[in-house]
């Protein structure tokens, strides 16, 4: 229990540090954000307008006051208003975040159902043609960048075969079938690389565990091979695999940008890119913060799962 509380404390501290770093990053960047924002047309910005924008953004106050205000607002889940359309950043995030999460979860489901069984099978048949073929496919899948996979999928499945639309999004409540059809390609593009990662991790981990002394003990006990595999090998072998999966899911929180862009999927990272292009600071800061907090939370969840699987950690 104290173990759990300590991990929770560390996670909360990390979130606070992340929020502070993002705040400071914005303020220590060369140039005045207000000036930068208004000078995008190329002509020198009007001094009065800069001053007005500075007040509006709260940039006129001393740094520590701004910091305190920002933190106070954060505690109330207030991320400010977008500079593009003046809508609350929180609204945009709550609308788009579920779509990105759905994409990631679908990809993770695919990776777990493909990568883990194949990885275990390849490890059991190490050195055979099955192992060589699956390992080569995994290496290839890892080498193709995600936006290349996505673009080629659009070309093959939408352009040539005309099985699915090239991209887009329909709410599940409006048309469940079309929603899933549109989900298939972006989720598949992410899931392919993720499956390869899961495959390689599982294979290496199972091979590693099979050399452990306690597996030899199980064999010395005369336990049957399938039971050794399930009870002694896979359970321990999956622990590092789960960690890696969680870490990858975390990187995907920001990494779906490319896939959302290719398939025109209106997720969270898509709005991040447009915010970056428009230098919409409140939006960028809000999204970065939310994703980082999710990332830290995910790592916390991994620690808990680890504790449930391995009794040695619970101390």
């Amino acid at each position, binding site marked *: 229990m104290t173990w759990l509380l300590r991990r929770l404390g560390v996670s909360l501290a*990390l979130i606070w*540090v*992340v929020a502070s*770093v993002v705040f400071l*990053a*914005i303020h220590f*960047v060369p140039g005045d954000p207000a000036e930068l924002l208004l000078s995008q047309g190329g002509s020198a910005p009007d001094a009065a307008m800069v001053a007005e924008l500075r007040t509006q953004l709260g940039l006129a106050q001393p740094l520590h006051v701004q910091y305190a205000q920002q933190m106070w607002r954060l505690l109330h889940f207030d991320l400010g208003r977008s500079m593009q359309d003046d809508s609350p950043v929180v609204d945009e995030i709550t609308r788009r975040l579920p779509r990105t999460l759905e994409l990631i979860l679908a990809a993770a489901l695919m990776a777990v159902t493909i990568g883990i069984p194949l990885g275990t099978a390849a490890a059991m048949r*190490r*050195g055979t043609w099955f192992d060589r073929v699956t390992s080569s496919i995994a*290496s*290839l899948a890892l*080498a*193709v*960048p*995600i*936006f*290349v996979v996505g*673009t*080629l999928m*659009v*070309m093959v499945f939408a*352009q040539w075969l005309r099985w699915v639309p090239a991209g887009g999004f329909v709410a599940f409540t409006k048309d469940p079938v079309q929603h899933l059809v549109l989900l298939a390609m972006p989720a598949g593009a992410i899931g392919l690389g993720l499956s390869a990662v899961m495959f390689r991790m599982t294979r290496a981990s199972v091979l590693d565990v099979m050399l*452990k*002394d*306690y597996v*030899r*003990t*199980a*064999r*010395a*006990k*005369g*336990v*049957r*091979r399938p*039971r050794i595999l399930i009870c002694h090998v896979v*359970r*321990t072998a999956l622990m590092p695999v789960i960690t890696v999966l969680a870490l990858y899911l*975390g*990187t*995907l*929180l*920001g*990494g779906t*940008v*490319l896939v959302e862009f290719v398939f025109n999927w209106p997720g969270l990272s898509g709005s*991040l*890119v447009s*915010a*970056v*292009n428009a*230098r919409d600071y409140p939006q*960028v800061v809000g999204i*970065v913060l939310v*994703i*980082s907090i999710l*990332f830290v939370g995910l790592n916390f969840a991994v620690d808990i799962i680890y504790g449930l*699987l*391995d*009794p040695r950690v619970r101390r």
Partner: protein
Amino acid sequence: MNRLPWPAIGAVGLIALLAVFAPWLGLGNPVSMDVPHRLAAPSAAHWLGQDEFGRDVLTRLVWGARVSLSVAAAAAALACIIGTALGVMGGFLRGIAELLALRSIDVLLCFPPLLLALLVVTLLGPGATTLIPVLALVYLPGFTRVAYAGVLTARSQDYVEAMRVLGAGKVRIMLRTILPNIGGPILVQFSLAIAAAVVLESGLSFLGLGVVPPAPSWGLMIGSARATMAQAPLLLLWPCLALTLTILAMNALCDGLRDAVDPHPAYRPPAARLLEALAPGLLPTPKAVLDLQHLTVEITTPSGTIRPVRDVSLQVFPGETLAIVGESGSGKSVTSLAITGLLPGAARATQGAAWLAGTDLLRLPEPALRERRGASLAMVFQDPGSSLNPVHRIGDQIAEAITAHRSLSQAAAHREAIALLKRVGIPDPARRARAYPHELSGGQRQRVMIAIAIANGPRLLIADEPTTALDVTIQAQILDLLAELKRSTGLALLFITHSLPVVAEIADRVAVMYAGEIVETGPTAEVFLTPHHPYTAALLRSAPVEDGPPPEGIPGVVPPPLALPPGCTFAPRCPRRAPECEAAHPALLQTAPGRETRCIRWNAP
């Protein structure tokens, strides 16, 4: 250092050469447009065709490699220098430097990489010059971690301590001793960072946040070819292919480098357990529980076949304890693993027979052997800490041994497991059965291992250094337990150890092994009183005796298994060596009833 991945090095080198020499390949200008010929098909002048502005695709591909690789290499180099410096300083200076270096890295790791890149691009604006610090920042933590871990291992090593004692300055120690030692892992990290940076650079350029048009970049080319996908699909394929092949080659290089730097080379896949070379016609000795005859084990290694066990024969009778004693590497553990069919993948028994109750274990197929393991043939291993599964309760681990051989309900098996725990002297067995291995002491864990071994009433118990990992008082308790079990159940015990006092305490007979062979056997008391083999004698002199002379070491080392001397394997270290010892390999000679030795000069003056 293992073999370097030359094919991958060649492929990556070729791509790098193309990129470096792009201006001198006679390819023309990558940005010169030819709008009338936009989207032209491949021709003699433009081998891969022209893009949407009529620019030559081949030229842009090669120049794109130049941009991608130079950005990636510069970013990886920057990350490598700063990250390694942070890690080395953190690991070596400790204190506040360590805290700052590691905590700042932890904060960086709170951001998903692409997100971190996007955040920095927002702040600095897009462009190739921004990309380098952006990518460097993303890959910096990896270098810091590797360098920090490397320094922590290196700094505790003797030579670093020695340099400090000699008064070398801290900076000098860092540069002269630590950096070369963490070079391997850093090199691997560097290759990983370049490969990842190429992917991230092309991704950012694809989004329009990286390299700025019209400069050529593979990511940009893929992005713009998307618009004309229907008219000119090849335009899309070329940069996709170039990018994928480059990353494939780089990944292969990374994997190869990692294997080359790894100090533990991968083992060969398991081969068949048996060779046909098994000599026929061997018959079991009547009455013996175990009759091992002429066992030879081979291990295939990259540098040749070694035979860690050669022509080993021994018998164990009911209610008897036979000890195999020898130094590490003498082949005693391999012998026991060969009997139980638990040899690791690269090793296999190639000659001999192992009779247990009328069946030859070496010729038994795995399913039949499995039925005997844990039933009539049980084993206890050296390290009870690693031999029990850390994630299962010990009661379940004992019950598993029971249900593997008898069809019993879970509850009945569990009751029996508790009875077994009580039998091996674990207090409060019902509560202890619910404990995990890490909650027990080393001695208790070994008692659990013994409980597992006796669960199905074995006829032969093989104990492979069961007390080596335990302290002396616990060691005595475990030996007492084994002796008591032997007396009460009549099982035969094959006890493997390197400790002569343990042999004296537990064994009826002893077999001394040296460099893969038995060099002397006989009743323990007789062998200890009048050793016939000089190695046994030297071993006895090397063990401390109460009120006796101080122990003497044995000069020289055990010969390496790939370079065994042609004659007696002990001759190079033997004080009684004569010219004829090195001429021919000695056979086992019977020297007295029940005693054998592999020394031709055993009774020489």
